[in-house]
């Protein structure tokens, strides 16, 4: 920011003119204890719960525990400069973040301050971070699909706009990749994305932002980051800041996707500050209201009714499990709040099934309502097929002689698993997904060698684009499934030109 000399003079002039009339009135307290990101202050009689307070060195804090003789304050910044006896000043404001179009394409901290080095954000509006969720009558049932571009999700656990779908799994098996791919696929879908990184490594966040930039996803994405080195209160607040920014768009009739990566770290941060504030610990040392912090957050995801503009917030919360244990405290809590979960399994991941989605344990409670008709038709039986295959697979390992029906089921199953594999950062359009799933479920892939399936898929979907545009055109315009005859002609024609590669084995 540059200051012109005239501006300074004008400012000083104004100051001098108003010199006598001005008096600063403030309500203060005194710090009586400080440490670990928590301060206790005496005084501040009329402070509100959740109000922002300012320490004498300019660091902000948030009033949390209002007790008879002191106030517990979480410090939102470096706390080493604050000493016992310092003044704490009320600001009279509840914590809020800047919201609006100006934030799109930026990386900000949970207070809405830019951390991408691209200059100040000139936001005109703010929103309190603790808002109320839309009520019963303000909502509408979820019906529009949110295309993630990931075959295994769009076909098996479809997500609708306004839904809350949990993504759960161990560390390092591709949870964040699902979020990134989903955000990348929202290009040209009239969606705004908010990616909230909670307790992530700065380098990881940097990598994510670069991926967004490279694929042009930053044009419709806000990244809110509270990295691992930030004080616990900021990690705790990050998701609320993210959802407040999203709400502004939702109430303006837009569709928003919010990704919370991840809520187990937020719960741990909240546990830290609750214990430091001396709130009684409960199960796994989490405080009593740890369920509430997640339910109040996820309830703010909604599909609004038409009177309110019909906007939506779709939430994809992440929860990390330890060794696949989904019966731990935080996973069970969040599973019960959300409208379904996508369960990632490490043994699938290491056997090469990526994304490592366990179709048996993953559900979407909104389900088929959020699928286009064509997808509903081709994917209808996929789930049962896959379940039957997993059962047979275990069974068939013991015997070599199988009757033809069982063998055919196994063959089909292997191809299904193969089709549901997908490379990183390559989200697939829904019509492409329908094409390959049609070929699979109608048996056109049964004579294609398993190791050729992925090549078949990419070549076939590309080939259709140039040779049978009417198929894609039909799906795009009517979202229904084209005639079987059309498909048959196209598939037969393509298969004549498709050359299976030499067997890899």
């Amino acid at each position, binding site marked *: 920011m540059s200051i012109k000399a005239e501006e300074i003079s004008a*400012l000083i002039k104004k100051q001098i003119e108003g010199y006598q009339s001005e008096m600063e*009135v403030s309500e203060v*307290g005194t710090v009586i204890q400080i440490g670990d990101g928590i301060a206790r202050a005496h005084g501040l009689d009329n402070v509100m719960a959740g109000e922002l307070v300012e320490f004498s060195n300019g660091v902000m804090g948030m009033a949390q525990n209002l007790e*008879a003789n002191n106030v517990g304050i979480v410090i939102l910044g470096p706390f080493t400069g604050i000493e016992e006896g310092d003044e704490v000043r009320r600001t009279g404001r509840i914590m809020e973040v800047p919201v609006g179009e100006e934030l799109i394409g930026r990386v900000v901290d949970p207070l809405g301050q830019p951390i991408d080095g691209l200059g100040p954000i000139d936001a005109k509006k703010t929103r309190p971070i603790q808002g109320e969720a839309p009520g019963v009558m303000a909502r509408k049932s979820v019906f529009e699909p949110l295309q993630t571009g990931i075959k295994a999700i769009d076909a098996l656990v479809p997500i609708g706009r306004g839904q809350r779908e949990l993504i759960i799994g161990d560390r390092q098996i591709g949870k964040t990749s699902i979020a990134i791919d989903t955000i990348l696929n929202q290009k040209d879908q009239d969606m705004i994305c908010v990616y909230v990184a909670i307790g992530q490594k700065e380098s990881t966040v940097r990598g994510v932002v670069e991926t967004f930039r490279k694929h042009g996803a930053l044009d419709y994405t806000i990244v809110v980051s509270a990295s691992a080195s930030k004080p616990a209160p900021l990690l705790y607040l990050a998701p609320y800041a993210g959802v407040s920014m999203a709400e502004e768009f939702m109430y303006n009739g837009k569709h928003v996707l919010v990704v919370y990566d991840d809520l187990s770290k937020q719960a741990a941060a909240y546990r830290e500050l609750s214990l430091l504030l001396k709130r009684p610990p409960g199960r796994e040392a989490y405080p009593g209201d740890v369920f509430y912090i997640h339910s109040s957050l996820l309830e703010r995801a909604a599909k609004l009714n038409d009177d309110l503009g019909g906007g939506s917030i779709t939430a994809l919360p992440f929860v990390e499990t330890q060794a696949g244990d989904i019966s731990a405290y935080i996973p069970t809590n969040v599973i019960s709040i959300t409208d379904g979960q996508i369960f990632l399994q490490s043994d699938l991941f290491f056997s090469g099934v990526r994304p490592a989605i366990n179709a048996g344990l993953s559900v979407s409670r909104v389900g088929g309502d959020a699928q286009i008709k064509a997808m509903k038709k081709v994917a209808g039986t996929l789930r049962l097929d896959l379940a039957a295959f997993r059962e047979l697979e275990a069974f068939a390992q013991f015997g070599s002689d199988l009757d033809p029906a069982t063998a055919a089921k196994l063959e089909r199953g292997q191809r299904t698993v193969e089709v549901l594999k997908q490379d990183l950062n390559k989200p697939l359009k829904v019509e492409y997904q329908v094409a390959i799933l049609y070929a699979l479920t109608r048996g056109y892939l049964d004579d294609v060698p398993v190791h050729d399936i992925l090549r078949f898929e990419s070549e076939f979907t590309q080939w259709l684009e140039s040779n049978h545009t009417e198929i894609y055109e039909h799906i795009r315009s009517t979202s229904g499934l084209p005639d079987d005859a059309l498909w048959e002609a196209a598939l037969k024609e393509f298969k004549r030109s498709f050359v299976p590669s030499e067997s890899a084995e």
Partner: protein
Amino acid sequence: MTKSIVADRYAKAMFELAEQKGEVESIQQQLVEIKKAFYGTEGLKDLLESPAFSKNKKKEIVQNVIENATVDVKNALNLLLDNNRMDELGNFVDSFNALAFEQAGVAVATVFSTRELTEEETEKISQSFSQMIGKKSLKIDNVIDPTLIGGIRLQIGNHIYDSSVRAKLARLEQQMLG
């Protein structure tokens, strides 16, 4: 906001007693003196809070220090000693003070200024501010603080009214730096 619930209870009891006997003002004065003496004398407070001395020994010391006090005040201190609440003495006196001022409609104000205030100035400040906060008058404590540069800064309870040059400069700095 109270510093200690225990001290509040003692203070309330003491205050009611003083009110009955109509000695609020005298007791208040004595208590303030006692606090000054105990907290101003090096080691005396530590000695009274130390478990190494017997209660009787401590009582003896206290009685010597406050020879001129009224019976009620002496008794109150003995009671504090008996109940092992000697560490609450400071808060006890503060709470008592607060109660007494509350009843008299007086608020305590600390005025920071660059030089000592004249009688007239004190009177004026007392008048205008006591009206503002709805009290009868102010008990003004004048503190000299040359770092203010000019103007005054007034603290009443948890409220600070700042019209010092230092605060104005700080605000100007904040505005210019955005």
